């Protein structure tokens, strides 16, 4: 296991109690609204003050019993939330490379092509549609080659025609970077086509199910 999560905490009205492990794989997290899916990703990103332990790649991210919390900026993660948080005074390209320790124009071009945003690179965020903004934010999360991707409904604003292409792109990027991807999704097709693991959540608890996803069937064949 590359990462381990053990949380036992109360956040507002939610009682979050779960234990799970993950490797370099795609994990789809689903469940009803208010089940704690986004909260789980926020805990992993270090954006919530919680009780428990999280370790990743041999590093401690959180150990509340020792009073240790690794700041978000040191976790080397790539995140996409429902609020894309693109900075309006920066162009698309500058938004994508924000915070990256390197500049790699070849990788940037390739990523832009994969996510179908090449024509948008000189625009300002205010000139983007919701779907385009979401793809730009996804590019920003991936560009810095993070050690894990945390994606909250990354395709929710995409037209059905482009969703399958984006799934393929995400799959190929995950394979190439060899990183875990934890992705909240309500779309059953995401679980069917992408998931190595499918975690279902209810009222802050993880109902870990071995789901017979299409990807698992392909692996077994």
């Amino acid at each position, binding site marked *: 296991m590359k990462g381990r999560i053990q949380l036992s905490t109360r956040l507002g009205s939610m009682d979050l109690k779960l234990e799970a492990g993950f490797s370099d794989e795609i994990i789809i997290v689903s469940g009803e609204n208010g089940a704690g899916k986004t909260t789980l990703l926020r805990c992993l990103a270090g*954006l919530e003050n919680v009780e428990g332990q999280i370790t990743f790649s041999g590093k401690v991210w959180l150990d509340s019993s020792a009073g240790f919390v690794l700041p978000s*900026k040191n976790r080397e993660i790539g995140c996409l939330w429902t609020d894309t948080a693109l900075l309006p*005074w920066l162009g698309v390209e500058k938004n994508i490379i*924000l915070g990256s320790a390197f500049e790699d124009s070849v990788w940037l071009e390739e990523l832009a092509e994969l996510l179908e945003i090449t024509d948008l690179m000189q625009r300002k965020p*205010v000139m983007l549609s919701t779907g385009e903004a979401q793809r730009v934010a996804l590019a920003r999360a991936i560009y810095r080659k993070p050690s894990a991707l945390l994606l909250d409904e990354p395709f929710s604003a995409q037209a059905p025609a482009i969703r399958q292409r984006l799934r393929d792109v995400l799959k190929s990027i995950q394979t190439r970077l060899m990183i875990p991807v934890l992705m909240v999704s309500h779309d059953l097709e995401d679980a069917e086509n992408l998931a190595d693991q499918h975690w279902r959540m209810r009222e802050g608890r993880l109902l870990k199910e071995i789901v017979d996803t299409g990807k698992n069937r392909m692996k077994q064949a």
Partner: protein
Amino acid sequence: MIESLLISLQLALVTTAILLLIALPLAYLLAFKSFRGRTVLEVIVALPLVLPPTVLGYYVLLMIAPDSAVGRIWDSLFDSSLAFSFSGMVFASLIYSLPFAVQPMQQALRAIPKSWLEMAATQGLSLKQTLFQVMLPAARGGVLVAAALSFAHTMGEFGVVLMVGGSIPGETRVASIALFEFVEMQQASEAWMLALILLAVSFVMLSLVYTINRKSLSMVGGR
């Protein structure tokens, strides 16, 4: 008249420049941090808004008097008196205009969407990078408003500068004191002209403040 206007202008520019440097960390503390004594700090920053300028001037004068600690340090460093000098007026103006610099910046920093700050954290930006690449560009409207208000407020100071600086021609006689003296000496045309210039400065500065505020609101509301 020109001389007093130039002194006011110089005082306003120096005060505004120094205030921006002092006010930014204070505004950051008050916008984002919880700490013991926070309320006391907020009250101290806001005090000049409600304190009569003469009272503030009186305390500043006591603070910088030649036999005070500040006065003695100043004297040993620069071999001059801080009281009844241009530097003394700058010192007093910094205190007097502090809330006009801190509060707009504090509000602008507080108005930055939480999602932008969280994005900065998860993208690995350090505090310095977050300050210069996210917070300051996002709060630039507040910084400009702080500068405009500090400048206009310092240009129009009367009670504090009179208490601390006196009215030494060519050194501490600012435009508002010169205006008072023109009226006292019944020099109507000079008083009229100086009042009009001060009114115009205030009008332009406030117009700038409202324009910036409108633009800042539309930026924070953008995607």
